């Protein structure tokens, strides 16, 4: 084996140990972002190929998972998001900060409506509610709620100001609560008070 080959093998081994261990969490976020398995597979593969190409730019000891998410988020925004999309209009005028809490509390204390709600809402409805979010909101919600990144990490990953991260999270929460309330009414386990 010549020097070049052994160097390549070392790089591949390090890449496997430090970068590929995060495959599962990237895959799961890719699925939520692209909403279909084919695109999610492609997005994750493109992410890893790009990461491998730029592996010498990765600073050892820094957060590899956040670095990979940054690459994936950029690819998603530039290549995967529906081309020529028009900015999504989000109407939150009638949604208060305590939308869901307020609606559930109004059902009366005897039924413990919060517990009822959390027990009964279907997994699929939660996934659908996330899928329906406009991309900008979905991205910060997924990075925060599912992946546990901090505001600062999300700002770095998505190239946003912290204030924008916070306001998108805030509005994303409201949109999620509004649509989960809609599903709860539709499925009939919560009845809107007359």
């Amino acid at each position: 084996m010549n020097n070049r080959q052994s160097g390549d093998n070392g790089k591949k081994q390090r890449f496997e140990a430090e970068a590929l261990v995060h495959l599962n969490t990237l895959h799961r976020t890719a699925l939520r972002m692209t909403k279909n398995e084919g695109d999610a597979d492609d997005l994750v593969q493109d992410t890893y190929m790009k990461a491998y190409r730029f592996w010498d730019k990765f600073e050892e000891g820094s957060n590899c998972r956040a670095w990979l998410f940054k690459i994936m988020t950029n690819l998603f925004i530039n290549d995967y998001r529906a081309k020529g999309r028009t900015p999504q209009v989000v109407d939150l005028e009638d949604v208060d900060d305590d939308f869901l809490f307020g609606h559930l509390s109004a059902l009366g204390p005897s039924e413990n409506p919060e517990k009822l709600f959390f027990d009964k809402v279907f997994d699929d409805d939660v996934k659908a509610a996330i899928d329906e979010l406009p991309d900008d909101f979905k991205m910060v919600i997924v990075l925060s709620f599912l992946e546990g990144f901090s505001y600062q990490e999300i700002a770095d990953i998505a190239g946003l100001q912290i204030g924008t991260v916070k306001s998108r999270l805030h509005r994303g929460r409201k949109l999620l609560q509004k649509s989960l309330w809609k599903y709860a009414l539709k499925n009939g386990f919560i009845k809107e008070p007359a």
Partner: protein
Amino acid sequence: MNCEKALKRLYDVVDKEADQTDRDEIKKHLEHCQHCMSRFEFEEMFKTFISEKACINCNSDELKTKILEKIDQSRDSSR
């Protein structure tokens, strides 16, 4: 600390972004304000609920094989 100030920091607390001083002040308020306490608990439950329900465990083995193959191909072609 009053309700308005506490609720302003609601999401910072739920998202574990509030510093210790803020957390202590809010905690003191929540100890004697049932309404704010319920709201904080609710938003914490909401976040946990969403993350648990939406967390799919996807099988990425096949994807891993594909990526490793692609890496090998890229090394061969660059030689």
